[in-house]
C-alpha cells in the first residue's frame, strides 16, 4: 500500500520539509515583490483608534487553564486506550475486564470533576 519503497519516517520528514519550504518560499517571494514604507503609526498594535492601555501579555482568566489540565488528563488516558483498541477482538473477555477497571477510573475522574464544578464556566 505504500507509495514507494521508502521508509515512512523519511517520507514524514519530506512532508515536514515541504511544509516549511512552502512558508519560506512564499515569504521570500513576498519579500521580493511587496512594497516597504515606514510610518511610526504603522508599528502600533491594532486598536479602535486610541493607543493600547496597559500590558497585553498579562495574566489571564484561570478557567482556560483548568480546561487545559482536564484535557491533558483525559487525552493521556485516551492514548492508553489506543493500543488496546487495536487488539480488542484478540484479547476478548479477559482484556475487556482489565480495561473496564481502567475505564471506570477514567469515568470516575470525569464525574469527580463534574461534581466539583470544574466544568462550569465562571
Amino acid at each position, binding site marked *: *500500500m*505504500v*507509495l*514507494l*519503497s*521508502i521508509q*515512512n519516517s*523519511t*517520507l*514524514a520528514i*519530506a*512532508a*515536514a*520539509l*515541504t*511544509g*516549511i*519550504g*512552502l*512558508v519560506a518560499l*512564499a*515569504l521570500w*517571494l*513576498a*519579500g521580493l*515583490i*511587496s512594497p*516597504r514604507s515606514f510610518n511610526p503609526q*504603522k*508599528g*502600533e*498594535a*491594532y*486598536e479602535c483608534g486610541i493607543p*493600547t492601555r496597559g500590558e*497585553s*501579555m498579562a495574566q*489571564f*482568566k484561570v478557567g*482556560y487553564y483548568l*480546561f*487545559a489540565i*482536564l*484535557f491533558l488528563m*483525559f*487525552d493521556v488516558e*485516551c492514548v492508553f486506550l*489506543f493500543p488496546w*483498541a*487495536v*487488539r*480488542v*477482538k484478540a484479547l476478548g473477555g479477559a482484556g*475487556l475486564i482489565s480495561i473496564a477497571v481502567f*475505564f471506570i477510573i*477514567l469515568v470516575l475522574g*470525569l464525574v469527580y470533576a*463534574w461534581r466539583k464544578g470544574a*466544568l462550569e*464556566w465562571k
Partner: protein
Amino acid sequence: MFDFSLFTNWIHSFLSSFMPEWLTITTECVLIGVALLLTYALLALFYIYFERKVCAAFQCRLGPNRVGPMGLLQSFADMFKMLIKELISLNHTDKFLFALAPYLVILASMLAFAVLPWGNGLQIIDFNIGIFFLIAVSSIGVLGILLAGWSSNNKFTLIGALRSGAQMVSYELSIGLSVLTMVVFAGSMSVGDIVNAQDNLWFIFSGHIPAIIAFIIYLIAGTAETNRGPFDLPEAESELTAGYHTEYSGIHFGFFYLAEYLNLFIVSGVATLLFFGGWMPLHFPGWDGFNAIMNYIPGVVWFIGKAIVISFIIIWFKWTFPRLRIDQMLALEWKYLLPINLFNLVLMVLIVVYGIHL
C-alpha cells in the same frame, strides 16, 4: 481498480537503473514534495472558491463572478493580492514567536495532509499507527495559534488565541474518542488497512448504531476543531476583529487562511476515511454488477468527491446555527459529547467482542 503503485514502482525502477540508492530516494522525496505542494495549494485555492460560492448560494447572492469564467480565477487573484501586500513589522511583538507561528500552523496541516489515502496505492505516509499519527500532528496547529495570539501583544489576539486553544483542545478529545471507536471496529490504526476493511461495505453502514453516533460526534467536533460555523467564537468578527491573526498582514495572514481551509479538507478527509471508505467505491455485498460498475470510477474521484460533500455539510452548519457562547461551547463538549462518546465506545466494544447486533 487501477493500482497506482504500478506507476510509482515503474518510476522507482527507472530511477534506480542509473542512480545510486541514496540519490534515488532523494529524487523521489523531492518529487513527492513537489506533488504535495501543488495538491496542497490547488486544493486550498479550490476550497476558498468553493466556500465563497456555497455561502453566496445560501444567502441568495451570486458570489465571485468577475475574475475568469464564473469567478474561477478569483482565488488566484486573492493569492497574488496577498503576495504583493506589505508585511508590516510591529513594534512591540515578540519577533521570533511571531515569525514562528505560521510555520507551525502550515507544518501541522501539511503532515496531516500527507497521511490521507488518495487512491489505490496512492498514499504518501502509511504508518501502522497512521490515524494516531494524524491526530498527533494535527494538534501541533494549536501551538501555532496560541503562539500567534500571544506574540502579537494585542488584546484581541490574546483573547482569540485563548478561546481557540480552549476550544481546539477540548474538541480534540471528542475527535480522539470517536476515532478510537472506529479503530476498535476496524481492528487497525493503519490508514491503508482501515480503507481495505471497507471493501465490502463502508463503516457507516456496517458499523451498526455506534458508527452513526461516532460520525455525528466527529462532525460536530471537526467543525469546532477547524474554528468554523457555530464554533467561530475565536475569530468572532464583531467582537474580536479577526481573532488570533488580527496583527498578521499580507502573506503572513495568507498562511493562516490557507491552513484553515486545508484543515476543513483534512477533517472531511478523515471522516471519509473512517466512515465512508476512503477511496473505496460504493460497494454492497451481493450486488456484483453494481460493484463492478462503481469500480470504473477512479479512487481519487471517490475520495475528493466524498470529502467535498462532507465539507459542504460543515459549511452548511455555518449558515444554520447561531454562534455559541464560550460556556455553551465548553458545556456541549464536556457535559454532552464526552459522556455520550464514552458510552458509545462501550457499545462498540460490546458489539465487537460479543458480536451483538444493534
